[in-house]
């Protein structure tokens, strides 16, 4: 046992105390901060895009401006909600509606502005959360409408106007902006006099050289739709506000789960996390298996090609070597999630009773048996795939040799990925059952289903089958490892199956 642990410790040390891993550990939180800062910086420094509306009818420009304002307020209030969530750590805060984080709809936008806007919201946040909070800075506007240049305004036909806009849109000419100087014109909207809702009505034109960013086009389309729908409503003799009233309707609906007592039955964040956590852990398992499998493969190939293996085999048995490697690399695989989990646990303990996302996730993991289920199936999945990787390493002198085996194995590892969404959505459905009974996918499937009370007999039966398969695979792959590891030249693919037979003296 001492030798197994020694080998395991060397394997573990090789990766965990490597500069690369330590650098990654340091860089990861810094990287997160950097990405967050970069996204914020990019958002704040996004250039304002200028556009003009040439409206022959004179009826739609205001509608477009209102839609622009509405969209801007939508994104500004969403940013406010995020600001409050970050400031409160996700916990519920004592701020009255419409300033408390909630869905952003037209009614809330109106209520927000009526109740005093961001100034009032900020003072409430400082009073109720933390007086030292940094001030909320609303995001910049993305689009700004400029008046049509006078020389174009003076032109008579729409065709002439189109031609007159071309040099602006192609950045051959700049358009004057209120702050002074000239800027490129992002888009021009031409609304002819015959524009309307009828089948024979003339169509509006959206001109822009940028064909990828369609957000302004969507805003214009939405504004024009709104205006046309309002006129249709008026044709029916209803007031224009009826459209806003209809649009503001939001059906009040709450979700409940039947497996809980009535007072706890309403779905909250905790329930959502409880349901999503196994799926998250399953994907993590998949990533870890792939990562540590590769470590095991490259490591075995190194020992084989560097001729270290014979020295090792004069000190330990092939089985001890194999077990040591499996144990060491498994520990490497568990280190990263363990570090994140410890971080989460520390945060939770430091902020006891908090209801932030991390705290709820950690509490869920430790308050149920999920952590043990996860660890058990992690080891099973790890054993299944690592034995395959180990055997591939033993029959390969280089990564190039290993490539011919890796293709099918990778296919095998990632094959259940497309079905995982189906298992997540219907954890006790047919696909979930089928995957559960395929031994190499049992760990993934059971993990995904863990929180949805799958039939016990199915889990016990499939787990027993998986354990039997794992033992069988360990025997077969162990034989390949033991017989191939000392061969001078790697066996051909067609000869590998011979190595699966019982070793003869």
């Amino acid at each position, binding site marked *: 046992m001492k030798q197994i642990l020694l080998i395991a410790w060397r394997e573990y040390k090789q990766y965990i105390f490597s500069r690369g891993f330590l650098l990654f550990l340091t860089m990861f939180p810094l990287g997160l901060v950097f990405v967050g800062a970069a996204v914020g910086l990019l958002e704040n420094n996004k250039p304002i895009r200028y556009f003009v509306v040439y409206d022959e009818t004179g009826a739609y420009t205001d509608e477009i401006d209102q839609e622009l304002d509405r969209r801007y307020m939508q994104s500004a209030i969403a940013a406010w909600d995020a600001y409050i969530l970050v400031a409160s750590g996700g916990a519920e805060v004592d701020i009255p509606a419409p300033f408390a984080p909630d869905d952003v709809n037209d009614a809330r936008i109106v209520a927000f502005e009526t109740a005093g806007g961001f100034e009032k919201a900020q003072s409430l946040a400082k009073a109720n959360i933390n007086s030292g909070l940094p001030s909320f800075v609303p995001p910049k506007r993305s689009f700004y409408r400029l008046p049509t240049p006078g020389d174009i305004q003076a032109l008579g036909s729409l065709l002439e106007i189109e031609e007159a806009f071309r040099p602006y849109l192609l950045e051959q000419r700049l358009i004057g902006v209120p702050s002074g100087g000239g800027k490129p014109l992002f888009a021009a909207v031409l609304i002819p006099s015959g524009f309307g809702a009828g089948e024979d009505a003339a169509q509006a034109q959206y001109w822009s050289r940028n064909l990828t960013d369609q957000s302004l086009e969507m805003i214009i389309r939405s504004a024009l739709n709104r205006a046309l729908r309002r006129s249709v409503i008026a044709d029916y003799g209803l007031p224009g506000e009826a459209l806003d009233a209809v649009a503001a309707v939001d059906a009040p609906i709450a979700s409940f789960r039947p497996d809980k007592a009535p007072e706890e039955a309403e779905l909250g964040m905790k329930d959502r996390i409880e349901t999503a956590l196994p799926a998250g852990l399953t994907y993590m398992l998949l990533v870890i298996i792939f990562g540590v499998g590769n470590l095991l493969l490259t490591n075995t190939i190194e020992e084989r090609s560097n001729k270290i293996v014979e020295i090792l085999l*004069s*000190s330990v048995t092939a089985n001890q070597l194999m077990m040591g490697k499996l144990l060491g690399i498994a520990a490497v695989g568990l280190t990263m999630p363990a570090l994140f989990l410890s971080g989460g646990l520390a945060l939770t303990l430091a902020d006891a009773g908090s209801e932030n996302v991390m705290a709820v996730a950690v509490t869920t993991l430790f308050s149920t048996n999920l952590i043990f289920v996860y660890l058990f199936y992690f080891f099973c999945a790890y054993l299944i795939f690592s034995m395959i990787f180990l055997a591939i390493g033993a029959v390969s002198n280089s990564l190039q040799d290993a490539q011919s085996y890796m293709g099918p194995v990778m296919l095998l590892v990632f094959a259940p990925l497309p079905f995982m969404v189906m298992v997540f959505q219907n954890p006790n459905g047919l696909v979930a059952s089928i995957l559960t009974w395929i031994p190499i996918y049992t760990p993934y499937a059971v993990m995904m289903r863990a929180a949805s009370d799958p039939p016990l007999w199915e889990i016990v039966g499939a787990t027993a089958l998986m354990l039997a398969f794992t033992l069988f695979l360990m025997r077969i792959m162990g034989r390949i490892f033991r017989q191939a590891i000392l061969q001078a030249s790697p066996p051909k693919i067609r000869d590998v199956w011979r190595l699966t037979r019982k070793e*003869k003296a």
Partner: protein
Amino acid sequence: MTENPVSQNPVSLQNITKRYGGFTAVDDLSFEVAQGEIYGFLGPNGAGKTTTLRMMLDIIQPSAGSLSILGSSSAISVRRRIGYLPEERGLYRKMKAADSIAYFAQLRGLSRKAAKAKAMALLEQFDLEEFARSKNEALSKGMAQKVQLLATIAHEPELLILDEPFSGLDPINQQTLEALIREQRRGGRTIIFSTHVMQHAERLCDRFLILAQGQKRFEGTLAEARAGMAGRLHVRTNASREALIALGGIAHIREEEAPSAGAEMTYEIELEEGADPQVFLAKAVAARIVISRFEQAGATLHDIFVSLAGDGGEAVSDSKRAPHEAAA
């Protein structure tokens, strides 16, 4: 595999055979190595040397026969008392030299503290202390081989098995290794080593075994091997080649030097098996042949090796080697 009655000797192999499918890598091999002996294991490529050493270490199992290593029928139970340096050897590239020695010593039973102390002591003894903290990938080939050798002896084994320990070493390092092997023997250790370099075997071995095509061709001392070989003479004379052949008993004759001004010539003469050099000299005197030099020379180990293992031994090509053999 049949049971081997426990031998008093540290190494005893009885009728060991190793087959890979239809290929016999080692065929009915028996030998014993006595306590404190340096035992040479000689043979051409593909002779079965590495396979035999691996069987002795229980890395692979024999198809037939029995063996006893340090009183045990399997080296697994006594592997802490054995030091093995394989022919194809390497080190972890990113590991430091001192850590490598200590790691293998720990694997062979030393405590962490003792292994570290021993590693440093050995590196100092072999003037490598300045490389103790160097990564193996930064060491020269010769230095890396020294580190491998130190890793083999760090746990102070009773039995040392060295597979081609001199390969890849420059002449200075070969001398260092010879000295180390002698020092290990003085410490009472039993040493088995395989080699292609006959001079080392000649200088170091108490006894040796010649293996060819998996079979034992000879086992014994150098003197015993020479006794079985035909006598060899160096003769300086003005007589012609034909005159010497006419004396009889010559198996092979060769001019060693060009004729000098006095027309004398030195010949290397290989006598027929069983022929007595003194009888040959008497015949020459009786035939009034003037001889200015008459020197009797024993066969070298190289001669013995070529004579015993050369008949087809070298002809064992890689394609005929067992697929399971790395080198033999």
